[in-house]
């Protein structure tokens, strides 16, 4: 929760920020920056892009504070701004899709068990993130909000301004698309099977 001493402080901070109190807004930033950055980072190729978009989302929130309605949660409103910014940049091709070929890392030293396990973990995590980024934001955003942010379907519906049924559909479809991408990248294969596959390809 950052600098907030309690959830009840947030409405008061918002009110003060709406009156122009930048310190109050700064406390709101502190309270939400990590989660927002995480949400954005899972849609961007690198840290710099995530940083830029996250900051922009907060700046936009500041300029539009007068439009915030207390009926909704501040985090919902804030994430909506960030989601729109990500979608906007994705469609203007500023968030370049990542090829899943990059996720097909090689295990260089099968003999080093610890290193192998670590590399397998990094390889799989990286492949999931890259698979997510290769999806259209219509599918990646609900998945990120569900799995990485732990948001409910209703909150996802509010953040993305899509009906609840559409949230469910996109999550189900997104899971399937992801599975297909990860499977085609070979990430579900065991190292031994992958090695055997490489040998087979080298000696048909």
């Amino acid at each position, binding site marked *: 929760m950052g600098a907030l001493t309690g959830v009840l402080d947030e409405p008061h901070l918002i009110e003060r*920020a*709406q009156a*122009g109190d*930048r310190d109050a*807004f*700064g406390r709101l*930033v*502190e309270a939400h*920056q*990590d*989660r*927002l*950055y*995480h949400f954005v*980072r899972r849609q961007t190729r690198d*840290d710099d892009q995530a*940083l830029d978009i*996250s*900051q922009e989302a*907060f*700046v*936009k929130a*500041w*300029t*539009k*504070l*007068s*439009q915030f*309605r207390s009926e*909704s949660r501040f985090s919902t*409103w804030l994430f*909506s*701004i960030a989601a*729109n910014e990500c*979608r*906007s940049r994705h*469609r*203007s091709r500023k968030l370049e899709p990542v090829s899943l070929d990059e996720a097909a890392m090689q295990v260089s030293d099968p003999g080093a068990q610890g290193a192998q396990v670590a590399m397998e973990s990094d390889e*799989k*995590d990286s*492949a*999931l993130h890259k698979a997510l980024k290769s999806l*259209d934001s*219509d599918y990646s955003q609900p998945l990120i909000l*569900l*799995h*990485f942010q732990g948001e409910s379907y209703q909150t996802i519906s*509010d953040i993305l*301004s*899509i009906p609840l049924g559409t949230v469910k*559909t996109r*999550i*189900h479809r997104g*899971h*399937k698309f*992801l*599975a297909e991408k*990860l*499977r085609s990248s070979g990430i*579900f294969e065991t190292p031994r099977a992958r090695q055997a596959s490489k040998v087979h390809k080298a000696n048909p």
Partner: protein
Amino acid sequence: MNETPCRHFEDDLSTWIFEGTLAEKRLAPLKGHLKTCASCHQLREDYQAMKPLWQEEPLKAPPGFKDRVLHKIAVGSTPRRNWMAPLSMAAAASVLAVMFWGLSTGDLSQLPRLAFGEKTKTMGSDGLSRRQSIADLEKEEPKSQSPSSTFGRGGSTKIAGGKPAGDMKDELRSNEESGNAVGEWSAPDMETLDSAPGAPENEVVADTAQPSPSIELVPGLKFRVLKADLPLLDKTLKERSLSRKTLTLADGNTPHLPIWTPPGQESKEPLPFKAEIWEFLEIVAP
């Protein structure tokens, strides 16, 4: 294999594996299907392999993040309380003087409509605002060559982001085909008088002491207007030998188009998005 049952089971499979909330009456048929359908069986294995991949430590914003945000705010924006607040008194007086002159003479073409480079109040179904970066649009879009009518004083610069009719139609079609029924619309920004001194560098700041950029009602321009404002719009269009047509959205969804705000109403709070109070229009040549 009949695809329809698989699609049905795939959704249940997703719910079962990732959320664990599938009702018992749906779980039994699903398990039965998994015994007979190889592709769904494979999908189940894939989902189970995917499940642990979602486990990760939450990321943290880099150190100094808050300070950077506050710095950007300090050199840029102020909270938008109303359209008058950010303007200097001299600028506000200039705007008011021109507006009153325009209204008193009945010549709306002289009313300055200040197009700002950054934001517009396009409303989502939950009343939340979304905005497009017009700076991005202006980098991408060629100047409009379509016949146009100037609405305002000064030169004939297009509405920020205004496009030839053909490009806009293609974009509307592309948006619809992508399945993004409630997504952004990279159409012209029609927000007025909502800029602060020292606005972020990617905003167009209207200095009302200078001749203002004017807005062209360009054939092909798509936007939405309150139904109550249709008479004024029609009058304006008629004076410029233009007309309008209503956009028919086959799927019933409404795009987020820029809003035409009649002169003198900029200070009003944006209304919640209700399709029945808006008309969705395209400017056409008669």
